[in-house]
C-alpha cells in the first residue's frame, strides 16, 4: 500500500532541487584537483551509497523510513540520491586540500558526520524523511561513519594504484 504524506510541491522538493543544482555547480566551478575519472568516481560514491542504504533499509521487509512525499518511488527520490554526490565529492576535495593525515582523520570524519546528521535533521524537519518502526535519525550515525571511513580508504587505494603506475 502506498502511503502519501503530502501532495504539495514544497520545501522538501526545493531542498533537493536546489541541493543538486547548487552543489553540482560548486563541483563544476571549484578549482580542479582530480582527474575527470576520479571526479566521476568520487561523485558517484555518494549517489551509490545513499541509494544503497535507502533501497535496502527503507524498502520491504525492513522499511524503516520513506523518502519525500509518498512511499512510492518517485523522480524526486532519485534526485535526492543524486544530491549525495556533491557531498562525497567535497568530502574528498577538502580532505586533499587540507592535507588530512594520521589522527587528523578522526576529527575530519567526525566533523563531516556532524554535517551529515545536521543535513539529515533538516531533511526530517522539511519532510524529506519519514521514519517508521521506531527508527531514529541517530541510527544513521554508524552508517555515516562507515561510509566516510570507507571513502577515505577508497581514495587511498586509487591514489596508491595511480602512484604505482
Amino acid at each position: 500500500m502506498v502511503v502519501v504524506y503530502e501532495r504539495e510541491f514544497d520545501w522538501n522538493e526545493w531542498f533537493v532541487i536546489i541541493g543538486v543544482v547548487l552543489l553540482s555547480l560548486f563541483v563544476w566551478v571549484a578549482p580542479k584537483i582530480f582527474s575527470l575519472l576520479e571526479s566521476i568516481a568520487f561523485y558517484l560514491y555518494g549517489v551509490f551509497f545513499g541509494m544503497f542504504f535507502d533501497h535496502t533499509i527503507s524498502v520491504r521487509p525492513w522499511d524503516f523510513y520513506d523518502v519525500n512525499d509518498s512511499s512510492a518511488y518517485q523522480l524526486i527520490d532519485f534526485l535526492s540520491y543524486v544530491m549525495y554526490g556533491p557531498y562525497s565529492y567535497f568530502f574528498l576535495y577538502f580532505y586533499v586540500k587540507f592535507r588530512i593525515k594520521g589522527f587528523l582523520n578522526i576529527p575530519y570524519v567526525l566533523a563531516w558526520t556532524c554535517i551529515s546528521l545536521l543535513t539529515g535533521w533538516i531533511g526530517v524537519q522539511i519532510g524529506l524523511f519519514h521514519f517508521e518502526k521506531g527508527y531514529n535519525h541517530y541510527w544513521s550515525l554508524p552508517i555515516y561513519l562507515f561510509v566516510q571511513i570507507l571513502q577515505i580508504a577508497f581514495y587511498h587505494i586509487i591514489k596508491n594504484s595511480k602512484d604505482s603506475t
Partner: protein
Amino acid sequence: MALPLITTITIMALFILWLHDKKLSFLQNSIVFMVLEIIVRNNATLLTMELKWIDPTENSFLNIFFLMHREIITPLFILLFVNSYLLLFSLRKKTLLFLIFLTLMQGMEYLAVYFGVIKYVEWNYVYAMLLNTAYLLIGLGISKITLLLDKNGVHQNGSRIRT
C-alpha cells in the same frame, strides 16, 4: 541452504575477480561497478515495489540473498565479463563469453526463484534474459567510455592531463 550458497558464490566471484587479469584499472572498475549497481538497484526497485511484476520475499534471511544478488553478484559477474571481454580479440570467443555469462546470470535468476527469494508475477525468464543482456551490454558500454576518458587523459576541466 539459500544463504550459504549465495555467500559462497559471492566469495568465489570476488576471489576470481581479484585473481583475474584486468584490462580496467581499479578506478575504472569502481566506476563501472557503481554505475551498474545504480541501474540494477533502480530496476529491481521499480520491478518489485512500483510495477509489482516481481514479488520479493518478506523473509529477512532470504532478503539477504536478494540483496547479495542485486548488490554484489550481478555487478560482479558483469565486471568479470567486461574485463574478460576486453582481453579477447576473436569475435567467436567474445560471443561465447557473452553466452557463458548470460547463462550464469540466468542461473542466479533461477536460484532466486527456486529458493523463493523472488516470485514472478508478470515476469518470466525471457524478460530476465533480456534485462541481463542489457546489463552486460551497458557494462561493456560504460567500460569503453571509461577507457576512452582515460586514454584521452581528460582532466576535470576538459584539458588533457597527459600529452
